[in-house]
């Protein structure tokens, strides 16, 4: 069987400017942050369309000016309702946006995975999601007088997801309480890059969780990256919770240009090992272990 394990640089090498990138997780939860940070290191990577139930993944990419078009249901840091990098990018008019009801968003993923042009959904009817997205059409039921939104499938070139465990072939496992929509992203996208806290032998996949935790099959994985703490600073239950102290620092820094420049220098203009070393230093300097 194919060993798909790659370094983080190798895995992302195939992502090009102008592509549509789907990002798994939810808000500030189990986001593939190591993969997002690698995208930020790729200075050549711009003009992206990002599809996400957004958190700091969207904030970071927006702050770096990498996003041309953003397709989202919300962008939130959860314990901090708004990501200043996202709100400022919107208020500057930097982003083309498609904002959907969360249920519509999930329906767009499901339609893509099922290779349908659209799926019907009631959500959105009567709301300003319709005029805000003038490409949206409705469909009349062939069985009654009901009318639904014909939610179009998202056309995703590559999906990025972060899971607790994966094997070298890309069988992906989540051990926390919520799978979010990572399997739907994987099935919707042409290719999926899976990062995992730990890459384990296939025979070990059921040692930490029941078979219910096997989220999606290697059929939907094109590359596997081992990325310990790869969701930091978002949560990755049960391996670790959200780094709230660091998230506060992120959000506060994003509100001020000078602080943001310092944040970028300290945490982003370095490789993944350098990032985690800087985070450790950040906590040590505050007297936290």
């Amino acid at each position, binding site marked *: 069987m194919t060993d798909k394990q790659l370094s983080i640089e190798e895995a992302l090498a195939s992502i090009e400017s102008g592509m549509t990138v789907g990002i798994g997780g939810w808000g500030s939860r189990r986001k593939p942050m190591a993969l997002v940070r690698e995208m930020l290191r790729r200075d050549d990577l711009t003009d992206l369309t990002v599809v996400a139930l957004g958190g700091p993944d969207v904030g970071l990419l927006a702050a770096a000016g990498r996003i041309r078009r953003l397709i989202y249901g919300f962008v939130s840091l959860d314990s901090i309702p708004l990501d200043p990098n996202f709100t400022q990018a919107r208020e500057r008019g930097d982003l083309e946006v498609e*904002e959907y009801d969360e*249920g519509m968003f999930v329906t767009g993923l499901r339609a893509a995975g099922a290779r349908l042009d659209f799926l019907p959904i009631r*959500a959105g*009817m*009567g709301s300003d999601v319709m005029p805000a997205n003038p490409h949206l059409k409705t469909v009349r039921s062939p069985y009654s007088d009901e009318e639904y939104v014909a939610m179009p499938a998202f056309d995703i070139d590559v999906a990025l997801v972060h899971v607790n465990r994966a094997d070298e072939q890309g069988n992906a496992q989540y051990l926390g309480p919520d799978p979010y929509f990572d399997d739907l992203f994987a099935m919707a996208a042409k290719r999926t890059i899976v990062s995992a806290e730990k890459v384990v032998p296939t025979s070990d996949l059921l040692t930490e969780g029941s078979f219910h935790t096997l989220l999606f099959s290697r059929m939907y994985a094109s590359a596997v990256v081992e990325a310990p703490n790869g969701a930091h600073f978002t949560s990755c239950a049960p391996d670790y919770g959200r780094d709230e102290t660091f998230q506060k620092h992120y959000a506060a820094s994003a509100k001020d240009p000078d602080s943001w420049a310092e944040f970028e220098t300290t945490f982003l203009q370095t490789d993944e090992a350098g990032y985690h070393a800087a985070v450790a230093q950040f906590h040590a300097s505050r007297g936290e272990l």
Partner: protein
Amino acid sequence: MTTDATVAEICIAACADTYHESGEVLAHAVGIIPALGARLAKLTTAPDLVLSDGEAFFLSGPPTPDAEDTESMSVEGWAPFRRIFDIVATGRRQSMMGASQIDRFGNQNISLIGDWARPTRQLIGVRGVPGNTANHRVDYWVARHSARIFVEAVDMVSGVGNDRARTAGLTHHQLGVIVTNLAVFDYADDGTVKVRSIHPGVEPQGVIDATGFAIEVDGAPLTRLPSTEELHLIRVVLDPLDERRREIGT
């Protein structure tokens, strides 16, 4: 009648009242006061309500810090986000959530302030509100009633109001009430917001002044006070740390 019930406690009881006829549905309550309202209803008038922990689990009873006289909660169901959307579509859910703006037909906005293409203030996005209002009962909670929130027209309709629901043919649309720190509102037959009751101690003129569209207050009754049992449950069982006080305007 004299009472020592606070505005927060009156609002919690008003929130609890939204579940009288709900039956066996998932209570989705955003905010401290709405969450306490759902938990109070669960312990009093609506024992069949389904409560969630706000994450992925359903709980058999409300979280009751330090309580000895109530059933301790246990997990009774698993509902990660994907199942929430499935539940929304079945209609077995009832929401009470906030509003950054709300108009006289109950159109609600939490998405942004200003222009869609380049907002003055980007807020959180429409989240699940369009789907909530298309599928099941939705009530609103406004902790600081003001003319900036109750407006003539909202900037981005997230939660669908009665006028729009009628035009769009949303057969499962149902707006319940709006509970604020000043009053409780419901909707007239023509779908417009009307006063249902004004909280004890609130001047009716204050409600008119704090509402950005015309509102009739004459003859409005007083909002009911929480019973002795309800006050005990709120103060001793559900919220001994007085979290409720943090959310309410003065």
